[in-house]
Structure formats: C-alpha cells, structure tokens
C-alpha cells in the first residue's frame, strides 16, 4: 500500500505541475474564423478544405469537432447563454429552437447574401436543402422571412437493391411499380433470399415509408387535410395505405422481425446480403462501404402504387451551418461557407465522406451511386416543410398500427378505425385546451 501510495502521490504531483504550467486561455482572433461542428466523419475533410482555403485566401479557419451530437447541442446551448458562440455553428434541433436562436440574435440572416450576383449562390444549391433553413412569409414562429442557414449536404430515403441477388433470382431490372416489386420479392423468396429489410423498429422509418405512399395514393393536399382533421383515417385512400403493409406482410415481401429491427441491424442485413431490398437513407452508402466494400447495389424510388402521381420521398438538408450574427468575422465566415458550398469543394466533400453534395453542379463529379441518390432531390419532402403535422400521439399510434398490421394483430380496417378514434380523442383534447387558453 505504501508503495502504491507513493507512486500515486508522485503521479499526482506531476499532474498538478502539468495543470498549472499548461493552462490554455481562450484565444479570440478577429482575423480567424472558428467553426464548431459535430460530424466525426467529415472532420478530416473539413480540415483539409480549411487548409486549402487558407492557402487560397489567407484566412485561417479553425475547425473544432464536438461529438456526439447531444454533447455538441449542450455546448451550443451553454455558449449561447454566455454569448460565446463561434463564428460558424450548427443547430441540431427542431425548427422551433432554430427560430428561438434567430429571434435572440444568434443567427445571421443570409437572404441578401444568397441574392448577390443574380442569386448565383442560391441557384447552385438544391432548393429542398435551402428550404430547411428558410422561414416563409407566414411562418408560425414569428421569424422575419428569409434564409438563415447554409446546407452542407443533402440526404433522402429510398429503396436500395442488391444487383447480385436480383440477378440470382432472374430479375433483369429493378421494379418500377408496386406490383412488380411484389413479383420481385416472390422470385427472390423462391431462391431463398429475403425481400425488403428496414429499421421499422424505429418509428420514423415506418412513418416515412407510409407517408411516401399516402402522398402517392391521395396527394399532399388530402394528407394535410387529414392532419387538419378534415379527412378521417377510415377514408378508402388511407385504407389503401394500410393495405400496402398487409400485402407486403401477407406475400412474404418483408424480412422476419422487421418491426423490431433497429436501422443499424437492418443495414447489416442488407450489407451482408441477407436481403435484396432495403428502405434506407443516403447515408447508407457510407455504412455499406464500411461493412462490405464489394457490395453491388443500386437505388430506386419506392415503386409507386398510383403511377399517375409522382412518388414523394423524405429528404432535404442533411447538415446545415449558420453564421453567428454577432461575430466580428461575420463576413469572413459567410465567404468561407460560400466557398465551402461551391462545386469543387462539394465534390471533394462528397467523394471523401460519401454524403450527397448540397451543390447541384457537383453531381457530375461524384460516384454514380451518390449521383443516383441526389438525382431525385426534386422528389423530396419533409415534415419540417409541411404546413401541418400530425399530432404526436396520433402519429405514434399510426406507426404502431402499421406494426400491428405487419405482425397480423390488426386488419387494415381495424388499424384505420383505431387511429381515427385516437385522432378524434386528441382533437377533442386540443379543442378543450384551445378553449381554456381563450378563456
């Protein structure tokens, strides 16, 4: 014990000496731009680009990584309170929180910057990516209309297919309609290959898939009318949406246990060729590359049920950055972000990190699979962009009802009736809350 105590005491003494001689004070240099981000996989590429930018312009950009995202959010919240935010940062939260940062003067309005040079910067980026950072004329948050962020990359969720397994099942081309998709899964089952895998144990993925088809079957207006309570879930069009899952389950098109699968596990299943189709986001390119670099796959929009209406998928801005309104280096920060989202830098970022570029012009410079993913950005939509969203409890019950259909606990009609009853109850509660507020 004495020996251990003396070793520990010696270590402590050295440590304390080190602490006092190496206290590092916070440096504040107006000629330097500081960027805080949370993206582990993009850190090295961003540092390389920052070094390149310094070489070209003489402006030093310091890239600091804080991860995981929840630790990053804590840091942003704390530094906002002490008004110590860096020149460039990201807000990883709901639009409501984004709006609060704007209203408190932490985020610069970039609308005028986007309009410069005949809106060259704005035109170079995917509109859907900008929309996530845009506050419309009549936004409910009370924020001055404008664009407040810069998208670094985009993302979307589609159907990915394994080329080798499709060939094994004698399928010459990926399915273009829902019926063809069902036929393809039957052919795959015949050669012992599972059909569709996805992380449907996670509600957002199941919701995304269901609403893709709701938009395809009845159109955006009717979906929004349902959220407003003007169309019931027992409407024949909604029954059709529920029936999709019943059909998929009945015909063996889904892998076993899909409703309890986390997306990480579903990604393993597809990467290790345990299933021929996956419903997953564009980030999967990075994931699959790590798990099985030899995997041959392609991407398609979810095969439509209604060929007369275009298929809509969830997507938009992947990661966005904002500029600190109070930063003394604000102009330099904006100039750097403009440079970072230019074609060459976006292509480099995409090649290095396997994320989809936010710049449309960069598509010609990136791997085919990424280009295929990004090529359908015009088809994307996202709940954050909709005027109305479903009440949280109803959305949750909707997803659970779909899981119940898949496991055979509910029929599509029963599921629709159950969701509608929850909707009625929640609307009644909302109405009472509204009346109380008015009183």
């Amino acid at each position, binding site marked *: *014990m004495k020996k*251990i105590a003396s070793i*520990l*005491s010696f*270590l*402590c003494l*050295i*440590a*304390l000496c*080190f*602490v*006092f001689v*190496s*206290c*590092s*004070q*916070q440096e504040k240099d107006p000629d330097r731009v500081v960027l805080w981000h*949370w*993206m*582990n*996989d*993009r*850190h090295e590429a961003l540092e390389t680009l920052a070094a390149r930018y310094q070489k070209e312009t003489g402006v030093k950009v310091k890239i*600091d*990584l*804080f*991860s*995981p995202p*929840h*630790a*990053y959010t*804590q*840091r942003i*919240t*704390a*530094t906002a*309170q*002490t008004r*110590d935010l860096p020149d460039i940062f990201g807000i990883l939260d709901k639009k409501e929180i984004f709006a609060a940062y704007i209203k408190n003067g932490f985020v610069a309005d970039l609308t005028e910057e986007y309009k410069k040079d005949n809106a060259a910067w704005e035109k170079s980026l995917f509109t859907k990516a900008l929309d996530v950072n845009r506050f419309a004329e009549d936004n409910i948050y009370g924020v001055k209309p404008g664009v407040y962020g810069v998208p670094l990359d985009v993302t979307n969720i589609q159907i990915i297919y394994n080329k080798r397994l499709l060939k094994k099942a004698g399928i010459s081309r990926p399915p273009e309609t829902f019926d063809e998709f069902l036929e393809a899964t039957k052919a795959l089952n015949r050669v012992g290959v599972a059909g569709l895998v996805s992380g449907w144990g996670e509600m957002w993925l199941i919701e995304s898939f269901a609403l893709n088809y709701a938009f395809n079957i009845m159109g955006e207006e009717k979906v929004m009318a349902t959220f407003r309570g003007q169309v019931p879930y027992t409407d024949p069009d909604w029954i059709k949406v529920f029936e999709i899952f019943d059909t998929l389950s009945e015909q063996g098109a889904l892998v076993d246990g899909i409703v309890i699968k986390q997306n990480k596990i579903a990604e*393993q299943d597809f*990467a*290790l060729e345990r299933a021929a189709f996956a419903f997953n986001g564009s*980030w*999967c390119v*990075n*994931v699959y*590359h*790590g*798990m*099985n670099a030899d995997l041959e796959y392609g991407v398609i929009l979810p095969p439509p049920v209604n060929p007369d209406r275009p298929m809509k998928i969830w997507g938009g801005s992947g990661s966005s950055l904002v500029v600190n309104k109070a930063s003394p280096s604000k102009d330099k920060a904006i100039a750097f972000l403009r440079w970072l989202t230019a074609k060459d830098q976006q292509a480099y970022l995409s090649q290095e990190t396997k994320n989809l570029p936010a710049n449309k012009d960069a598509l010609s410079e990136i791997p085919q699979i990424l280009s295929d993913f990004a090529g359908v950005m015009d088809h994307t939509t996202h709940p954050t962009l909709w005027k109305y969203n479903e009440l949280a409890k109803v959305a949750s019950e909707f997803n659970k009802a779909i899981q119940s259909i898949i496991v055979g606990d509910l029929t599509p009609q029963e599921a629709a009736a159950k969701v509608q009853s929850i909707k009625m109850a929640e609307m009644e509660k909302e109405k009472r809350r509204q009346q109380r507020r008015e009183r």
Partner: protein
Amino acid sequence: MAINKYRAMKVSKGFSIHLLLGLVAFTCIFPLFWMLRCSFMTLETVFTDKSIIPTAFHFGNFIKVLTEEKFGIYFMNSVIYTASVVSAIVIIASLAAYSFSRLRFPGKNFFFYMFVAAMMIPLPGSFVPLYVLINKLNLVNTRIGYILCMTNVGLSMSILLLKTFFDKMNTDLEDAARIDGCGKLGIWWHVALPLARPAIAVIVIFNALNVWNEFILAQLLLTDTRLMPLQKALMEFQGAHSVDYPVLMAGLTLAAMPIILLYLAMQKHIVKGFSYGATAG
C-alpha cells in the same frame, strides 16, 4: 447417514452459490471478453465471423489506435485529469468529512446536508450553470477549469462515505495522539487518514472511473484538442452513420487497461472498504 445428508446439503448450497456467482461474474466479464475479441477482427470479419475466438488475429487495430496522432496526447490528458481530480477529492473530502464528523461548528448539519443534496442533481442538469460559472471565472478551455468541475462532481459522495467511516471510528487513538501533542490537522494526517485507507481506496476507484470515462463535460468546457481526454479519441472512431467497430474496440481495450490495473492494485482495500461500510451501517 445424517452426516451424509448434512454434507449433501452443504455441497448443494455451495454449488448453488457458486453457480449464481459464476453467472454474475460471466455477465460482467463477457462484455469485456467480447470487446477484446472484436478488437482482433477486421471490419469484414466482425460482422461475419460468429466464432467465440476469432479465426484469425488481426493486430492492425491496436497499431492504428496507437499510431493515431492524438491518442497519446488524449491518454496523457486523461492520466493528468484522473490523478489531479482524485487527489483533490481525497484531500478535500477527507478534510471535510473529518470536520463534519469530529468538529462542532454552527451550521454543521446544514452544510453536510447541502453536500448530500448535491448528489441528487444529475450531472447533465448542471452543465449550463457550470459552463456559465467557469466562463465567468475565465477558466473555459483550461485544464484547471475542468479539474475543478470534476472535483466538485465527486465530492458529495466521497464526503458522505468518509463521514460515515469517521463516525464509526474509535476515538481512543485520536485521544492518544492529542496527548502526544498532535493538533487537529496532525490527528487527521497521522491517525484518521491511515485508518480510513479502505474507504479512501473505494473513493479513489469510484472517482478514477468517473473521471476516466467522462467526456461530455470535457466537450463542454474544453475546445483545444490538446486538452481533451481519452474518451474524445474513442468518439472520433465513430462516424455519424458508420462505426469502425474493431478499431473502436481496440481503443476501448486500451482505455480500459489502466482502470482494470488500478482496480486490481487496490482490490484488497476496496473489498475491505465495502465490508466495513456494511458492518458499520
């Protein structure tokens, strides 16, 4: 016959206890074993090789971790933080606990319960106020700022543990020391601290583990990568959507080593500390 029945009961009881303890030990050791196993695999085999012992040992992950530019810096930082915080906690907590146990001063109980109440506040709940405080003291992005916060985090539990220990400690030795001319600090140093070795061992291991594994507060208070602890390096092995599991496991294995060694070195005292706590209560 009666003896055989008695022996049979004894053997079966012993067997049941050992079986239960074996199962508990297995659940504790298996994750560590799995971590070690995965650290010797490649990114391809980690998902496909189902064998308990890897069919081929791949040492590249350890080389990759050890040659990672900042791993050494992060490791040293963690050693510095752990040693500083633990020594500060042992000194402050033992002084405070001894005072709460032996001295009479106004507001003694109030201050003690204040320390105990601080244990109820979860660490994430105090992040923002801590940051604001450290920022006002101009200690953001300094080692001393982080060490002060982590010391504060570990004090409550340590004071409570040591006070309980001192309360149950016989006062005869202290009286003898007083007769020999020892002052209050002398008694604390020459009598109370040596006797409290088992409790101090528990405090050392608990707090060392806490500081060694902490990274969220470090991410909040530190900006400079040269000041970040080891856990930051482990976070860097994880991508936003993909994780290099074998490299991460190799990093985790290396990160777990010092704590395992510390535990093994102090094991005897820790067991004594726990059993003393049980009987003292």
